[in-house]
């Protein structure tokens, strides 16, 4: 039986420690991992907990991230609670197996500490890896700080393992900015945290020897489409109600409120920026300052990237004229993902919206308050004019002459 830890009400944890503490508290059966910067301390801390008797499960060292996720898939199909962590190049190597995990409907939780993708090689935070996983059929939660990273792990396990859902979930946090920045994190005691997620309930597990199953079967044009349709349908219709319910239950337990779409100063806002990760907190700070100056600017933080919160955003963007989509990933030849998704979300509405795209922060480049003030000023001009007053896509914070498109 695993030893318990007595936590202070508030612990000073970085995002990595917050994630590993949550993983310890839910008592995972199998963690198969191949550590990579900046997520290394998640599995390092977890291995430490296990070696010191705070976890009953197995820790499997593997030869690559492809092997790590493959090990997780096997353990999950066998019928265990399973999780791991990765970043960037490791995430890229996992991609093939990510689709296996979701198609096999295995509720694995993956902590992704977001980091840029080479080349050039870079260990710092941007959202390239998060974007790479967005069509993989996983649920994707986004944390803005260590507290979120801790809390969203519990939500992720609870939603993913629900027998109505049975889909894997990622919890994203920004590399270094969240993962290595120690902050005060409000904790939940071991028993309460475990009970929030509950005992793992196996489904179609291979270790149920009375009901032998074959996992990972082949289907061609005769059945493949139906399986994909089923998975897409469940992502589109079943996941949000379960996340809402989990957020409600979590608020009841801890007093901390999470929303699928986080809104700050959006009531009667003329202009908003939509962003993710640590940028949300910076943008909120700037928005507060500008609101105090009488400017109607707000911030929308995407809490759940997949499934895409179309209906929630339609609601949140009511009355907002200018939208700035802030993408922390190089779109490499098109608009940013957030721009495209938001444009798709608002295009059929009755209100005329002006949507523009800002690419920022690649490879850990800072997004400053000055940048955000400039963005808000441009968005307010767009709202005033009722049309774009800037190019549709601009790269901000990059050296040399201004770079923009369309």
């Amino acid at each position, binding site marked *: 039986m695993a030893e318990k830890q007595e936590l202070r009400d508030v612990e000073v944890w970085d995002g990595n420690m917050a994630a590993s503490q949550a993983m310890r508290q839910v008592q995972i059966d199998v963690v198969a991992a191949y550590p990579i910067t900046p997520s290394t301390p998640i599995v390092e801390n977890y291995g430490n907990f296990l070696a010191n008797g705070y976890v009953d499960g197995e820790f499997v060292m593997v030869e690559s991230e492809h092997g790590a996720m493959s090990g997780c898939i096997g353990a999950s199909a066998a019928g265990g609670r399973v999780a791991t962590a990765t970043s960037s190049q490791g995430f890229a190597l996992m991609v093939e197996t990510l689709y296996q995990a979701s*198609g096999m409907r295995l509720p694995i939780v993956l902590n992704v500490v977001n980091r840029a993708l080479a080349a050039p090689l870079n260990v710092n935070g941007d959202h390239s890896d998060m974007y790479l996983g967005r069509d993989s059929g996983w649920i994707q939660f986004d944390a803005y700080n260590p507290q979120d990273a801790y809390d969203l792990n519990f939500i992720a396990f609870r939603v993913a393992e629900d027998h109505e859902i049975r889909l894997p979930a990622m919890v994203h946090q920004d590399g270094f900015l969240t993962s290595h920045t120690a902050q005060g994190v409000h904790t939940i005691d071991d028993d309460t945290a475990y009970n929030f997620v509950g005992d793992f309930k196996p489904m*179609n597990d291979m270790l149920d020897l009375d009901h*032998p*199953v074959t*996992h990972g*079967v082949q289907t061609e044009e005769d059945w493949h489409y139906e399986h994909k349709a089923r998975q897409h*349908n469940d992502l589109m219709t079943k996941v949000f109600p379960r996340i809402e319910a989990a957020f409600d239950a979590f608020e009841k337990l801890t007093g901390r409120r999470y929303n699928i779409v986080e809104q700050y100063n959006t009531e009667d806002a003329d202009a908003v920026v939509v962003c993710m990760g640590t940028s949300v907190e910076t943008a909120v700070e700037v928005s507060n300052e500008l609101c105090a100056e009488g400017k109607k600017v707000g911030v929308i933080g995407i809490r759940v990237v997949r499934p895409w919160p179309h209906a929630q955003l339609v609601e949140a963007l009511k009355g907002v004229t200018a939208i700035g989509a802030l993408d922390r990933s190089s779109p490499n030849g098109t608009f940013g993902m957030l721009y495209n998704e938001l444009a798709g979300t608002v295009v059929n509405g009755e209100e005329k919206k002006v949507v523009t795209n800002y690419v920022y922060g690649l490879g850990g480049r800072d997004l400053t308050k000055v940048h955000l003030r400039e963005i808000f000023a441009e968005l307010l001009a767009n709202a005033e004019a009722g049309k774009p007053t800037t190019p549709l896509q601009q790269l901000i914070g990059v050296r040399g002459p201004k770079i923009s498109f369309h």
Partner: protein
Amino acid sequence: MENNGWNEFEIGAMLRSFDGAVSDVATTLQEDRPYSRSNSFTASVADWRIEKPVFNKDYCIDCQFCWIYCPDISIISRDKKMVGVDYDHCKGCAICVEVCPTNPKSLLMFAEQEDEDKVLAEWPTKEKKEK
């Protein structure tokens, strides 16, 4: 397969081997196991075969070599007595013929359309060992 809808099967890329629970499956004969519709045992792959092994019990010594070597569990043996070939799953690889130690062989390959009684009547005789 019945034309079920996209929302009518169990989720996951997963198939059940049996209908309902099973116990002691290892000691239950194949024909008595509750194989599910999705189990490959219930599917015939006879049309993969161009040549078939024919069994002649007159020469068989029940050594079980064919049963051990068959890669598709298509040699039917009961109480260590050779019974015959499962033509629904045999793919005609001829390994059973290759490993048969009797003289003449108790299993020989014939074209799929050959009549079994006819080839049994014309079975080769014992070959003399050359000194």
